[in-house]
């Protein structure tokens, strides 16, 4: 107990010297390309999607030229083997330079790591490089009308005929599917197995005959998502990732990466904007709104810090996806309350159309649903962190085709 340091401590909320050097390096790299604002989407925004896709592809090509197309990937896959901490610094600096790339995230941050972990060498060779270059833009094809929270209940069928899968079914909530070149698809290949054990992971060329994409307009009026219909779509078996019927395990890699990225939504900036709005509206710091907003700021600040804890876990090789699940809920709560408070401060103007706080208010319900509902996130955290028991599932061993189904539409 005698040898203690007053100054140097290992718990540290600032960049370590090495991280600071890395940050300086990437900031210098990005400096010539920095711009005031991004053409990408803000949450639920109504920008010109086609232009944003063009922009994202062009920037990705530039990054590729610089050798920074997918820096978090291992070197062997064409990346730079960044540590999780460095990946976050990279993301922060890209955002700072007005160069975020949410349109390509399905390929770069979700499918990429999945292929690296589970694909054959031939598949890696075929897909990783074009994805990194921005030539191939991907969409996720997981959810279905009958398979939301219960994703493993998906019923899109793939039947093997010779060495080709014949795919029929419907997918939902596919972001940017109307712009994607390829999609990664979960399909039921063994309906006589229990639901988790009969799914395969296929890569589909979105220009294949029989693929039809219909845009889904959200309640904000924006369009992020699509329905995708498959009618006798032919997918070569060479485009199956991993073993037959191993799709669920593979998809968990993909989903963990999705949850991590969603969990890191940092709502501090919107809450700062909220305070600027309250100040502009002359809201008193003694008021009910100010009290709510202050508590919200505390949440947002803590969420920012929690992000750092998740990173520390990642850096130690631990899996923080259960923490990320609760961060997602907390971020949704913060953004939803901020929207409500912002709109309340608008008084009579809340009757009108448009404006940041109304847009956020309309976007808020989706924060509790998209990427896994709050309810599912709570189950994940309660089971994985607290060790609370799962609910009894009488259908665990039942073959998929014998499962009970309701009459309701999605």
């Amino acid at each position, binding site marked *: 107990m005698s040898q203690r340091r007053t100054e140097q401590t290992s718990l540290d909320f600032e960049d370590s010297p090495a991280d600071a050097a890395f940050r300086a390096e990437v900031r210098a790299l990005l400096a010539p390309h920095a711009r005031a604002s991004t053409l990408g989407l803000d949450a639920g925004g109504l920008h010109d999607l086609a232009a944003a896709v063009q922009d994202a592809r062009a920037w990705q090509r530039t990054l590729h030229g610089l050798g920074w197309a997918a820096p978090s990937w291992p070197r062997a896959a064409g990346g730079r083997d960044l540590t999780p901490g460095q990946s976050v610094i990279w993301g922060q600096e890209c955002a700072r330079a007005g160069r975020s790339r949410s349109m390509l995230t399905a390929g770069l941050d979700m499918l990429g790591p999945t292929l690296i972990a589970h694909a054959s060498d031939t598949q890696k060779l075929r897909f990783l490089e074009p994805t990194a270059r921005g030539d191939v833009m991907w969409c996720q094809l997981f959810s279905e009308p009958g398979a939301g929270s219960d994703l493993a209940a998906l019923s899109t069928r793939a039947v093997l005929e010779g060495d080709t899968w014949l795919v029929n079914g419907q997918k939902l909530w596919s972001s940017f599917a109307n712009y994607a070149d390829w999609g990664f698809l979960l399909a039921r290949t063994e309906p006589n197995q229990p639901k988790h054990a009969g799914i395969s992971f296929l890569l589909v060329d979105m220009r294949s005959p029989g693929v039809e994409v219909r845009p889904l307009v959200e309640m904000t009026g924006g369009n992020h998502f699509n329905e995708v219909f498959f009618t006798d779509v032919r997918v070569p078996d060479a485009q199956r990732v991993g073993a037959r019927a191993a799709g669920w395990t593979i998809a968990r890699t993909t989903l963990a990466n999705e949850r991590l990225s969603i969990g890191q939504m940092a709502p501090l900036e919107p809450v700062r904007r909220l305070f600027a709005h309250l100040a502009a509206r002359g809201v008193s710091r003694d008021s009910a709104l100010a009290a709510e907003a202050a508590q919200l700021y505390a949440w947002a600040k803590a969420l920012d810090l929690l992000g750092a804890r998740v990173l520390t876990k990642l850096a130690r090789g631990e899996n923080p996806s259960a923490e990320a699940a609760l961060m997602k809920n907390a971020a949704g709560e913060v953004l939803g309350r901020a929207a409500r408070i912002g709109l309340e401060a608008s008084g009579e103007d809340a009757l009108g159309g448009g404006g940041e706080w109304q847009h956020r208010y309309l976007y808020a319900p989706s924060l509790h649903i998209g990427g896994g509902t709050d309810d599912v996130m709570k189950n994940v955290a309660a089971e994985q962190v607290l060790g609370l028991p799962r609910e009894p599932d009488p259908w665990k061993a039942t073959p998929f085709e014998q*499962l009970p189904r309701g009459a*309701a539409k999605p």
Partner: protein
Amino acid sequence: MNFAFDEEQEALRATLRAFVTEHWPVAEARRLAGGCEPLVWRRLTQELGVAGLAIPEELGGQGGSFLELGIAFAELGRELAGGPLFATALAARALLHGATRAEQAELLPALTSGARTATLAFAGGVAPAARLTASGSGSELAVSGEVRFALSGADADLLLFPARLGSGELALCAVERAAAGLDAQPANALDLTRRFAHLSLREVRARRLGAAGSAEAALTRVAREAAIAASAEQIGGAERCLEVAVSHARERFQFGRPIGSFQALKHRLADALMLLDLARSAAHWAWWVAASGRSEELAEAAHVAKLLGAEAYARCAADEIHVHGGMGFTWEHDAHLYYRRARSLEALFGDSAAHRRELAGELGLVT
């Protein structure tokens, strides 16, 4: 004490439920975007007399009370239906409280018959703050100013305003839609099934209604009735949202079970029902207070009913979306129309912050 409507009132409810479900369901409300279909309007006003439910028979009304008005707007609120009816019915009440008998006899029958529409053009406040100034004397005034978010303000044939005279006195003014100097611009609105307009008046010829000195009290009463009428739309809409959510939760299966058998959803919906039960009790009481002319309780009834209506509606509308998962937040699904209406109603006739503040004042907080 008796907390049930009588047979005639229940019959009115059933009639309207059937009529609205058939002729003005939410799909139609979406298509009409706050407007109305002339044929349906005519049947609703002429056959069913909905514009004059709470207006005496001798003035062309049905001779019912505010209870009937509440029942009717709860039913219309279930389908976001009615277009300019809400504004017209409130304007009729304003005439009833604020105009002389002669003026009523002249102006009301056209409203109750549905021949003309009207509005009471104050949107924002708990009390009828005058945003217009009036000059002149006697019954003919010239009014000027801006009114934002006037309910059905670009559709109404007759517009009623509170205006402030040079003397500081408040006047209830009537302006014809075609009056020179009146400009009504449709407002971009959160609520996609209700119309608002921004009005600009420059020396518009207006008729001063009612006996001198009576406007303040009449308008205060009407402002409270407006909040209470809003509670009818609130509980009707909230009730419908909860019904749709419950029905989906019973039919939709995930994990081999109806999703409504999971406690997360089940308890969420039970909590929503609790809020709805509270809001319904308060609304029914508030209608009764308005119907019985119990002026000493009217302010409290307005605050309580609108506050609880806002809380229940916001909750039920959000829950309808949540229970439906991804489909719930699509444009195509009706849930967002209710979510918008819930928030829009909260801002109308005094938002919740304002009603809470007034209520706290009534309950003894003075500073």
